[in-house]
């Protein structure tokens, strides 16, 4: 177990920002920012990441609350899936007017 990094004095926590571009799409990670609390993080995200009309919905998550997979476990995590082409639904024809799946 590694120790959490020491927090710098007066530093606001880091928030990861997810934005949904249009109805029916999923939220996508767009970047991160600093804010004192969740409410301000939403406001800051609105000002930093949606000023060119990019979104209809914003999620923010405190970066420390995210559990990430470890890059050193890449082999056992992902390589077994490489050889299993039958898991891809590429053998079906999807009509174009179905839109985003």
């Amino acid at each position, binding site marked *: 177990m590694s120790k959490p990094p020491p927090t710098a004095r007066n530093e606001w926590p880091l928030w990861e920002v997810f934005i949904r571009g249009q109805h029916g799409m999923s939220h996508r990670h767009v970047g991160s*920012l600093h804010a004192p609390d969740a409410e*301000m993080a939403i406001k*800051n995200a609105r000002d930093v990441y949606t000023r060119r009309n990019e979104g209809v919905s914003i999620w923010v998550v405190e970066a420390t609350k995210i559990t990430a997979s470890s890059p050193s476990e890449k082999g056992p995590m992902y390589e077994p899936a490489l050889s299993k082409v039958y898991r891809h639904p590429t053998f079906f024809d999807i009509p174009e007017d179905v839109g985003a799946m």
Partner: protein
Amino acid sequence: MHAPLFEFLLRQGDNTLILSHRVSEWCGHAPVLEEDIALANIALDLLGQAQMWLGLAGEVEGAGRSADDFAMLRDVWDFRNAILVERPNGHFGQTMMRQFLFDAYHVELLTDLTKSSDARIAAIAAKSLKEVEYHVERSATTIVALGDGTQESHARMQAALDDQWTFAGELFETDAGDTALNEKCIAPLPSSLRDRFDARAKKVLGEATLAIPDTSFAHSGGRSGKQHSEHLGHLLTQMQWLQRAYPGATW
């Protein structure tokens, strides 16, 4: 030309233009990147509103003056903004206090103007209101965070409020022109916005643990153009210098 209407449009245009310029002075200087971008957004919102108000003022005047002409080629005594918005930024807390006081007035004014009997005014107000509802939410949140923050931030915000409060009163000054516009349902009486402003100020400043100064004194002279503060001239030298040095320059 309808003189009270022209005067009214200049007042809206100048309040938004001058405050926009003041807020834009933070660009690249705000305490954190996120605030820097937020302030730039607010400045740009206000500049867009100024363009609409002054553009309409030009139409109403009918003398061929554009929004740019009003912004860049008038001198101090022609401006009709309240003194509050021309005051220097001070520190970040002072800027946010000025912003909150203006936003709290602005949002009530625009709400009423969306019902104006003049369709052009109602349209500008409707577009602006969406922006200003966000402005007031943001400035109020910041006021509460800083007012109800540390001992130092509280003391600075109380000093900022003591310093600015007497400049807010001018926003509600009501003259014969305002009465004439109100009779035609073009615009509300500024004085009629005061109760709603006070209610919001009381709520937000109360939450921020700040005490509203016990005075009814109000500085005056900006919206009539009779006596601006010494700060407006300095602001104009910076805002207008390019058009003054290179008349007619475009890009």
